[in-house]
């Protein structure tokens, strides 16, 4: 062991992500708009196509959003559109 402290320098970005508590889901979807978000993964459209008519049949408004590709993150514009246009999001994440 060393006789004196060893000085190191931090290799990280020296930042920490802000942890925000998860919002509770609404008690009911009545009167809400559900965003159906296709992130570009294979067959995401099939899943959302299956879900959308079933939500509508229950009188729940839906809105479709899509990223052009799953390879890149959602742009702030897309995230903003979803935040403004919907109350709840269903995201088709995986294949």
């Amino acid at each position: 062991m060393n006789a004196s402290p060893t000085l190191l320098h931090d290799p990280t970005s020296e930042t920490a992500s802000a942890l925000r508590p998860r919002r509770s889901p609404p008690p009911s979807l009545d009167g809400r708009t559900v965003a159906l978000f296709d992130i570009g993964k294979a067959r995401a459209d099939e899943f959302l196509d299956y879900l959308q008519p079933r939500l509508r049949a229950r009188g729940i408004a839906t809105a479709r959003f899509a990223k052009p590709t799953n390879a890149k993150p959602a742009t702030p514009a897309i995230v903003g559109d979803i935040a403004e246009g919907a109350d709840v999001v269903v995201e088709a994440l995986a294949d």
Partner: protein
Amino acid sequence: MVVVKDECETCHLVLPVLHEIAHSGRDLAIVWQDDGAFLGPGLAPLAVDDRALERSFRLGIETVPTLIRMEPGMDPAAAPPPTAPGDRAPHPADERENSPDAASRTSLAPPTSPASRTSLAPPTSPAPRTNRASPTNATFPTHQASRTGTETGRAIGWIRDDWRALTGIADLGEGLPPHRPGCGSRTQEPGMRERLTVRYGETGIRARRVEAAPETDPVELCYDRGWTDGLPVVPPTPERILRMLGGTRRDPHEVVGLIPPKLAPCTIEKAAINAVMAGCRPEYLPVVLAALEAALDPGFTLHGVTCSTCHSGPVIIVNGPIARRIGMNAGLNALGQGNRANATIGRAVNLVVRNVGGGRPGEIDRATLGSPGKYTFCFAEDESDPHWEPLSVSRGVAPGRSAVTVFAGEGVQGVSDQRARRPGELTRSLAMALRAVGHPKLCEWAPAVLVISPEHYATYREAGWTRRRIADALHRELVVSGEEVIVGARGVAEGMPRSRRGERLPKFHREGLLLVRAGGPAGLFSAILSGWPGGRLLEESHPVTREIAD
């Protein structure tokens, strides 16, 4: 004042001269760096023990003997240290300044030469303070006029006329040769400048300081902090970081780019810290920086590569003279272990992604299986055959220039063909293996690198085939009937959409297959590096080539 060391013949040569100066009545301090006994009893009262090298460091001594003329005033050794922020350790290219030819130099004006980089003109900022006691203080002689003053000139090495001019003694050193180069100061020993800068100067390092207590193993501390990729790292001490920064002329505080997924700014300094941890040598740093910049090109989509469920990580292929200069391996076991540059350059890039960008497996790195290449995957192309167009040249870099190409790739799939003797049959054979990239029934899905071994390449070369001809032939062989690869065909659900049944489908986009030469001289084996499916559309992700600024 004169700075000397026992291990210098020229310092021994000038001993009679030092006696002449001392007997002339001029104030003289003899600052010795290693063993003052060689000065003898006559000069001992003037001797200043500088084994700790603080005084030599503060004076910016690069060569001994160095004679400095002082006028009463401020203590020159209290001037700002040579390595203040923005004035880092010299670049390796500057080493020639220590050559014998450069070791004898006189500066009668305030020094501007590299050998006297520190301005000894009246300092404009207060001297840096250290909590460490200076061992020179206890044995410092009583020559107040020599201890304090403003430098008005210095002679480096033994140049009789210059020493006469500085001392004003017209017949000084009459019996000596007119000129004799000096030797390197102990401050110039390998690693010494960085150690002295940490001890007596200002490192300029802005990254947060983390102290490992005496009872703590720094390697374990790096584990505990989550700084490693699972293998031990080299603890990033300030000395090592400064040495690493010596590998580039770029400002340590320049931002290389925003590292995904956190989009955190990465400075040259942060890259250097991670390069230290990866085990890089300073001369690798330009390659690390170029690879980072290439990976940060929006066309590469580092965010997607890092966070994907797929196996991929950055594969770095190095071309040009720097690969040879830093000893990279393009031959035997080029894709494997054993070469420091290959191993650590790729690791440094991945550590930056982890530590600066926050791309940690199990967190936002969602790879289902990952691959060993996510530790490190970097190699050089074999450019020994003048008939072969290097990868970088084929991608627009001028011949003879150094460059990196980053490719979002997976592990190594070996391809054995020990029977093909004609280029056509070898091409068909290699194409058959390439169809497995991603899945044999997926086309335009994932790119690939084909690493052609020397023995396979010999078949092409003997037939006069160039890179372009090999690529064209492979692409032709890799076009399949949609009927064969649509979903459900051959009893396999995976495949291309049924709507493409009637098409002829290429396996790769035109730019989706890179050819690289590497490998040992024996073995009729080549290798396929499958790519990230995010690259199925070129505008979403594609390889990026960038020239290395070295």
